[in-house]
């Protein structure tokens, strides 16, 4: 479409913007896309390699040095596989879903500042694809949209396990988005701006100004947990719990569509690591040696380094942590993360106004959490009278879906 507009007349007149700016923007998009794609292949290799190391295996090692080309080979293999669409599938949605999974991940990356500023042809521009005024809200919007890939993939497969996976995914993502949003708000409170660029610059003056420290560690931890859940990464990967649901939402997918899901998942991992770095670790901030002309490289290196650290953390989680049970996952989201993030947000807001407010709100939060804990406790063990019979199987309450089948089975 953009070519069409270019052909329509003098672009300078039509847009009211400088051609150079346009070209730079286009270049930024292309570079970011290309780089991200490259990183994803590396990430897949990285994950497999790290996990195998942690499990005392060797991992991929045939193709390329250290097996670096293994991902490429897998991709080519998937690309040439037969493309299956189940007979029960809802064809249009089935085809649409992988793209819905991929695109939000790509868009989210566009707001991540990967470096400082660079001046080319008298135009100073940021090393990030876009710096929209709503900035970090785009992250929330896209994480909201990314759920559709999973939900629709599972539903459109026309198969039971993917459907269960879909239901789980939608519930899980709604649950954790609240906590996620609230932690983002604490960051925004501290910065006073939604722009990711501003968020990064406000952390630029040393480690003590990083939001990680500035806000207390808690928002970071909350964010890490919620974002992991949003990503459906272990230990929150009940959506694709292979022991329960075969392959989860993408059980019925094959060939290139499956590859797209795979791509999306790893792209999301990288993007979210980058976002985390941006929000809490100062983004590209770090020591910059005074070397002329290549000063702009160091922030990028800092950024890459920090992001890699988080990518490693994700892989580490996967290797080290057992998967949550579904009800535990929901409990964690609703009963721990949301109250905690809310309380911490109040705390931050209070301290921004004045210490007195801060302490007052802290006290309030403490009292509230005491009550809340007790209420949760009571709620779990509440006696609803002699006729309260909650069917249990092996001391373990059943997930609602199965429970419904069990109790309402005699309806039909």
């Amino acid at each position, binding site marked *: 479409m953009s070519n069409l507009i270019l052909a329509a007349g003098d672009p300078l007149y039509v847009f009211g913007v400088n051609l150079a700016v346009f070209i730079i923007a286009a270049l930024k998009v292309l570079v970011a896309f290309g780089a991200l794609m490259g990183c994803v292949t590396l990430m897949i290799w990285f994950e497999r390699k790290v996990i195998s190391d942690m499990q005392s295996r060797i991992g991929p090692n045939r193709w390329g040095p250290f097996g670096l080309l293994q991902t490429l080979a897998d991709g080519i293999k998937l690309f040439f596989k037969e493309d299956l669409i189940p007979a029960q599938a*809802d064809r249009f949605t089935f085809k649409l879903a992988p793209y819905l999974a991929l695109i939000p991940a790509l868009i989210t990356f566009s707001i991540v500042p990967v470096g400082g500023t660079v001046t080319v042809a008298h135009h100073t521009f940021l090393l990030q694809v876009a710096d929209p005024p*709503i900035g970090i809200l785009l992250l929330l919007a896209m994480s909201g949209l990314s759920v559709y890939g999973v*939900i629709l993939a599972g539903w459109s497969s026309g198969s039971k396990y993917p459907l269960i996976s879909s239901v789980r995914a939608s519930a899980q993502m709604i649950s954790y988005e609240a906590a996620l949003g609230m932690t983002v708000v604490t960051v925004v409170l501290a910065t006073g701006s939604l722009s990711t660029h501003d968020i990064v610059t406000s952390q630029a003056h040393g480690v003590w100004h990083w939001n990680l420290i500035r806000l207390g560690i808690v928002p970071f931890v909350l964010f890490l947990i919620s974002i992991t859940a949003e990503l459906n990464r272990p230990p929150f990967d009940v959506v694709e719990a292979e022991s329960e649901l075969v392959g989860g939402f993408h059980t019925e997918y094959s060939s290139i569509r499956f590859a797209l899901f795979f791509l999306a998942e790893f792209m999301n991992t990288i993007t979210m690591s980058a976002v985390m770095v941006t929000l809490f670790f100062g983004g590209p901030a770090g020591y910059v040696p005074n070397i002329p002309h290549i000063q702009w490289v160091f922030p990028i290196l800092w950024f890459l380094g920090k992001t890699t650290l988080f990518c490693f953390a994700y892989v580490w989680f996967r290797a080290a942590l057992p998967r949550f049970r579904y009800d535990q996952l929901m409990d964690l989201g609703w009963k721990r993360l949301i109250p905690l993030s809310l309380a911490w947000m109040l705390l931050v807001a209070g301290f921004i106004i004045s210490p007195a407010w801060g302490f007052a709100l802290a006290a309030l939060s403490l009292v509230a959490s005491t009550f809340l804990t007790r209420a949760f406790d009571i709620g779990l063990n509440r006696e609803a009278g002699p*006729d309260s019979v909650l069917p249990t199987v092996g001391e373990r309450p059943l997930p609602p879906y199965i429970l419904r089948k069990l109790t309402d089975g005699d309806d039909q």
Partner: protein
Amino acid sequence: MIAMTTTWPDLIVFIAAAAMAVIGALGIITYRNPVHSALSLILTLLGVAIAFLEQEAHFLAAVQVIVYCGAIVVLFLFVIMFLGVDNQEDVTIEPLVAQRPMAYASVVVTMVGILAMLSRGGWSTGAQVATGASPSGAENVQAVGSAVFTTYLFAFEATAALLIIAVVGAVLLARRDRTGESISEGADA
């Protein structure tokens, strides 16, 4: 500000947004499958969000996507899948005799009426009360924020009551009746 000539990018964006919104809206009411309708709803929502962006309401565009796409439609899909009601509704059966013509008539009357009223009013508002341009860009967020916390402070507080009652109500309704009585009654019905 540029004069009141419509520029090409704006026009194209508008047409895209309008097309998304209208096609999505038509999709909602024509698709037989609720999931497809929900997808169409997303299309409309995104179209409207783009229309917001085009009118410099950045904050609302983001909130629109976060709240509607990120929560409301997901909730719809969740319920559709949870209940397994994604079966095809037979739209050819008239639910009530003459309901469809009545719906046509009432919608046409309403729409024509509203549009006629609006065009009679010259498509413009009678009022030009405000001072200066509505803030755009980063200031848009700030302006919305300060409006919400000053002019609309009570309304903002009222939303607390609204959300409380909604949550209490939803929990109450969706909670399984632990007495088990309704289930047996449902079987009788």
